[in-house]
């Protein structure tokens, strides 16, 4: 493999890996904050016990999220130096803002939250976890603004002298319609992940407690946790669907090739069908694609809101992009950047299946939500074994859906690093093919070294992460958590052991 392929694999592996842990942190931090708020407001010890229990899981997860995030900050420069030169003027800004406005807050206040249980007044300590929760979400906004600019560049001009993109309007970059759709979609997906995680674990424990004859704990501690997770799942689930629909409509406009590829749609059609199952050699060209099950008109409806709307297929788009880019290059005396073999649409199989898997894995959370709604109605608890097993089994599904969603978004952007957008919203010249963005001086051997190194290390850490999460979930909620805050204490306790130490 050449440096380009290796660099793409490396970025894909490290990013997907990072995003296994990110949604859980983004969603779970606010849920833990809500649990702690419930404790501070009601004084009910169950919420303190739940806060501590899910707080431990949050911290185990947070550590690996941070560790895998560090790499991302530098990888642009390491493996994608030419990309970094081209976009730095625009792309660097949200990255730097993310660090200044969000990373500092979350890292500092998480330290205060972990070690501050017995050092800070109760409400200040509570404010710390809220600061962490808000900062993790803020950080998502900035990095999504950066990513959305790659999908749909705005607020930028092309400088012919330097051959670089230059920012002209930060407001436009931060209110890019693409990020305004991507942010709610990502955040609601993260809440769906965390809601399923909380409900799944608590459901398993509730069943276990009932079967151990300890119905009191099941009812008093675990049921409220399932309900909190359930509410989160329902609200987030609706949010995911609505924001996903908005995003799809935007995508048909801004990145038609991505959506055409996702539908395996080769020829432009009015009233295009939505393909549920397709077979054939999707990777090379449209010739081999056979659609087996279809919903008539649904793709047109998704794209345009009209069952008979016109949707452009891959073949038409190929010609459209080739014509547009080469016209612009000739007009402006820019050397041709592609040849006849260049494809202007992504890998059909990956986009087709990742899109369907993203949507399909939502069934996991939906199943758990429906089962919970039925079994827990009117304040009841349940000891049904299948319910506990279902809770554990579906925890993985929103993680998988999130991963496939990102694989779809990012692989669907190929062959571009910075995608050109059709007029009238596109900016001429502000586009960059992925193959032109890779580092010049980092050879294949160098990138292979880091690819192997990161993958092996990440593999080991993922196994440890899973064992720790599983072990701490199996430990369950501790009994008799005492209020550790200094509010309720008196006298000198300077020699008492810390309430928490590494």
């Amino acid at each position: 493999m050449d440096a380009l392929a290796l660099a793409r694999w490396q970025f894909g592996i490290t990013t997907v890996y990072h995003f296994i842990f990110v949604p859980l942190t983004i969603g779970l931090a606010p849920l833990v904050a809500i649990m702690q708020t419930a404790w501070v407001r009601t004084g009910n010890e169950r919420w303190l016990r739940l806060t501590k229990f899910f707080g431990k899981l949050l911290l185990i997860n947070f550590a690996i999220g941070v560790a895998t995030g560090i790499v991302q900050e530098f990888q642009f420069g390491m493996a994608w130096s030419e990309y970094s030169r081209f976009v730095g003027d625009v792309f660097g800004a949200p990255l730097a803002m993310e660090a200044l406005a969000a990373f500092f807050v979350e890292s500092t206040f998480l330290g205060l939250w972990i070690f501050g249980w017995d050092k800070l007044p109760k409400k200040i300590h509570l404010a710390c976890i809220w600061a962490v929760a808000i900062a993790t979400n803020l950080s998502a906004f900035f990095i999504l603004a950066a990513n959305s600019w790659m999908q749909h560049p705005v607020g930028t001009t092309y400088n012919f002298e330097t051959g670089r993109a230059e920012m002209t309007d930060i407001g436009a970059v931060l209110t890019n319609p693409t990020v305004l759709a991507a942010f709610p979609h990502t955040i609601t997906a993260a809440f769906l992940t965390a809601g399923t995680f909380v409900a799944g674990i608590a459901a398993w424990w509730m069943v276990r407690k009932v079967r151990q004859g300890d119905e009191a704990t099941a009812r008093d501690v675990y049921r409220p946790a399932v309900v909190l997770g359930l509410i989160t799942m329902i609200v987030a689930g609706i949010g995911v669907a609505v924001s996903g629909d908005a995003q799809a409509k935007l995508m048909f406009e801004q990145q038609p090739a991505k959506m055409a590829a996702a539908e395996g749609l080769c020829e432009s059609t009015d009233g295009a069908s939505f393909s549920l199952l397709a077979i054939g050699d999707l990777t090379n060209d449209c010739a081999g694609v056979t659609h087996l099950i279809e919903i008539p008109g649904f793709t047109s409806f998704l794209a345009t809101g009209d069952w008979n709307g016109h949707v452009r297929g891959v073949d038409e788009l190929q010609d459209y992009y080739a014509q547009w880019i080469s016209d612009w290059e000739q007009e402006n005396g820019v050397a041709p950047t592609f040849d006849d073999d260049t494809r202007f649409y992504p890998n059909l199989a990956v986009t087709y299946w990742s899109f369907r898997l993203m949507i399909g894995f939502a069934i996991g959370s939906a199943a758990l939500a429906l089962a919970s709604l039925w079994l827990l109605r009117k304040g009841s608890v349940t000891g049904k074994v299948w319910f506990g097993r279902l809770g554990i089994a579906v925890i993985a599904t929103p993680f998988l859906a999130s991963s496939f969603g990102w694989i779809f978004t990012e692989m669907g952007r190929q062959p571009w690093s910075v995608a050109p957008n059709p007029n009238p919203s596109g900016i001429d010249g502000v586009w960059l093919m992925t193959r032109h963005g890779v580092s010049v001086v980092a050879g294949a051997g160098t990138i292979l070294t880091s690819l192997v190194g990161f993958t092996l290390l990440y593999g080991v850490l993922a196994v440890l992460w899973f064992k720790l999460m599983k072990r701490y979930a199996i430990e369950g909620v501790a009994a008799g958590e005492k209020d550790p805050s200094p509010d309720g204490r008196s006298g000198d306790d300077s020699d008492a052991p810390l309430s928490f130490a590494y």
Partner: protein
Amino acid sequence: MELTDVWFVLIAVLWTGYLVLEGFDFGVGMLLGLLPRKEDRERERRVMINSIGPVWDGNEVWLLTAGGATFAAFPEWYATLFSGFYLPLFLILIALIVRVVAFEWRGKIDSPQWRAWADRALIFGSWLPAVLWGVAFGNIVRGVELDADHQYVGGFFALLNPFALVAGAVTTLIFLTHGAVFLALKTDGAIRERAAATAARLSVVTLVVAGAWAIWLQLAYSGKGWTWVAVAVAAVALVLLVLATRARREGPAFVASAVAIVGAVVLIFGSMYPDVMPALDPANSLTVDNASSTDYTLTVMTWVAVVLTPLVLLYQGWTYWVFRKRLTAEHIPASVGLTFDPPAEPVAVGSGSGSGSDGSGPDDSAGTPGA
């Protein structure tokens, strides 16, 4: 002052923040393998780790911010530096990754092997960046082989030149001393005594090596008169550091080692200016002008930095205030880690969780120091 100069200074400030704050984190991490006594190793290690427990993560963010700010303000610098120094940076990243998870996961499992691996990760994850950041900065200030497109073409082994290797020794020594001084300031009991004694010994070696390197830098690579001031400030700070550690004046000693690091950063950045990355052929050097973003981007980022940086300093300062108390072995609670094998029979909640220390203090039998 041009905005490009403002951002040159700002990035120097971010690196200063990183090296001063992570400097003692690295020092503590490196000393984990050296300071604790055999007979009470586990507890003394925990005292050391917890002396930086609440703050190390925030300290590390200074690096991410320096990286992000370089990308935003000087994209050419960011691209050339990180693609050129690919392998050293890769090693640093590996070290930082294992260090992060070791901090958070060390206490989660109550087993000697688990802790031993976490300690290895912490020690390795502290030594490697301490050395490599020095080597990197040594090369940056010395100048590297850039071609006309500002691409680094010198290869990996050109980075291992004598000046850069001595620079690696300098950062390692400064961080070791800085960490020892920090521990003497933040802990009490036996570990404080040994940290103070170690700091007193290390400071002399640091004075000699760092002083010699600074003069080497000034004579060979600076070409500016005023950077002698930075050399002098660093040298005076290091002399005061030697005196303060001998006199067991821990506060002043910490200030002195911090000022020495500030002096070193000013010397390095001052010598380079107006280059951000000097090339062996000066015609190919990256400068604050040819590496920078547009005026518009710099203006936007200046506003962001002006508003947010004071806030960051304020709440990070407050964190240090909240956790200002000295730590002793008595403050360290018994391990609440679990074992990987869950209890065999239905977990009667509350039993077997290992959290038996309800205010009665550590209940292990390995005698408490100072008793």
